[in-house]
């Protein structure tokens, strides 16, 4: 049975009704939503970070696998063979350019030695720069012959600083002497030699280390037995 509206339901006096909606507006203000936004952003950021990390780890693993495959395709033996072949070609080129060919000097010496002059000894030393020093002892029939020999050496530009010394004459007029000189690298290396062409000919050298060249010719022993027609007073040479 419903109570009439004018009958109080309680003897306790009622408090005035407060506006709860107003308090709720204060709590859910900008700070509240800002905090939620902050948390949401950080959670999304963490998710993105996790996703990106997973993605690049996948990419890294993929590249690593490709690299391992590429490494397996590398043949170390082939690489070493290539390196050795390159080194061999470069070194061979260097050695060939610096190759000492003293036979050129002997050819020149044979052409310069007068018939009345003979050499008794020779010391030849080739230096690092392929210049060479020679020391020789010899005999000349006369001072004139020695002078002509000196002039002959002076006329050869590839023989430098040719100095005749220790010149003494015996009672028979035979003049002994010493000769010191320096040789131009053109006279000692293969660069200016015709032998270079011979060496590069395929049919000259064989697979054996010492295959004599087919074109090698034995020349007359002019220098140390002294035979040319240069100079005056040419006489028969005296062999040692």
């Amino acid at each position: 049975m419903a109570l009439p509206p004018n009958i109080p339901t309680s003897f306790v006096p009622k408090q005035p009704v407060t506006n709860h909606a107003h308090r709720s507006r204060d709590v859910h203000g900008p700070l509240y939503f800002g905090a939620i936004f902050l948390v949401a952003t950080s959670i999304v950021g963490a998710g993105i970070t996790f996703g990106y990390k997973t993605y690049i780890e996948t990419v890294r693993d993929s590249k690593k696998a490709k690299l391992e495959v590429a490494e397996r395709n590398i043949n170390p033996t082939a690489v070493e063979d290539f390196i050795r072949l390159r080194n061999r070609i470069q070194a061979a080129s260097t050695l060939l350019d610096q190759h000492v060919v003293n036979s050129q000097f002997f050819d020149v010496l044979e052409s310069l030695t007068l018939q009345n002059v003979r050499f008794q000894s020779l010391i030849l030393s080739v230096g690092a720069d392929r210049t060479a020093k020679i020391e020789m002892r010899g005999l000349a029939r006369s001072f004139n012959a020695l002078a002509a020999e000196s002039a002959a050496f002076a006329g050869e530009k590839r023989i430098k600083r040719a100095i005749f010394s220790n010149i003494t004459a015996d009672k028979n007029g035979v003049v002994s002497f010493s000769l010191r000189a320096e040789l131009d690298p053109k006279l000692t290396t293969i660069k200016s030699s015709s032998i270079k062409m011979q060496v590069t000919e395929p049919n000259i050298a064989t697979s054996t280390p010492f295959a004599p060249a087919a074109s090698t010719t034995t020349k007359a022993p002019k220098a140390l037995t002294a035979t040319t027609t240069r100079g005056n007073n040419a006489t028969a040479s005296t062999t040692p």
Partner: protein
Amino acid sequence: MTTKLFPIACVLIACAIFFGYINPTVTGAIATTNAQIKQYDAALSAAQRFEQKQAQLTTEAKALPQDGVTRLEAFLPDGVDNVQLILDLDSVAARSGIRLSDFVTTEVKGGQSASDDANGTPTLALDNGQPYDSLDLSMSGTGSYTQFRSFLDAVETSLRPLDLLELRLSDASASPGGGYRYDMTFRLYWLR
């Protein structure tokens, strides 16, 4: 009270997420992984270039005449093999009529022979970093000048390069064989 603490708790949670996970992950694991990826990229690029170069070199190597490669290997062998060389030299000398003896080998270190003395004897200085080594081989021989020239020509035109760095020629007419005595020092080379 709970509602007042909520924003503070949110800020703390956000900070914890950022400083506890995002920042360490970005500056740590992700940065490391990116660096690794860059390294792998560089390595893969190099591997690709290597494969191309290898293919190119293989083609060029196949184009080289095998005979030329064989001759090149004889020109600059992989080892010194000086005993065989001495035998070959002796054979060449015998064909020329020269009698060889007193074979002595001297290792060349830093461009100078170990036996070089201080009297200024010129020696061949090899460039550092060259891919070959060298050895000095000294010997004596007797014979006529003609025979010596024949021997020298054969040695100079041999496939294996032998540089005659020192020669002492002296009269040996008093000796039983006569002719001249030749004290020679050759330098020979091989690939390291």
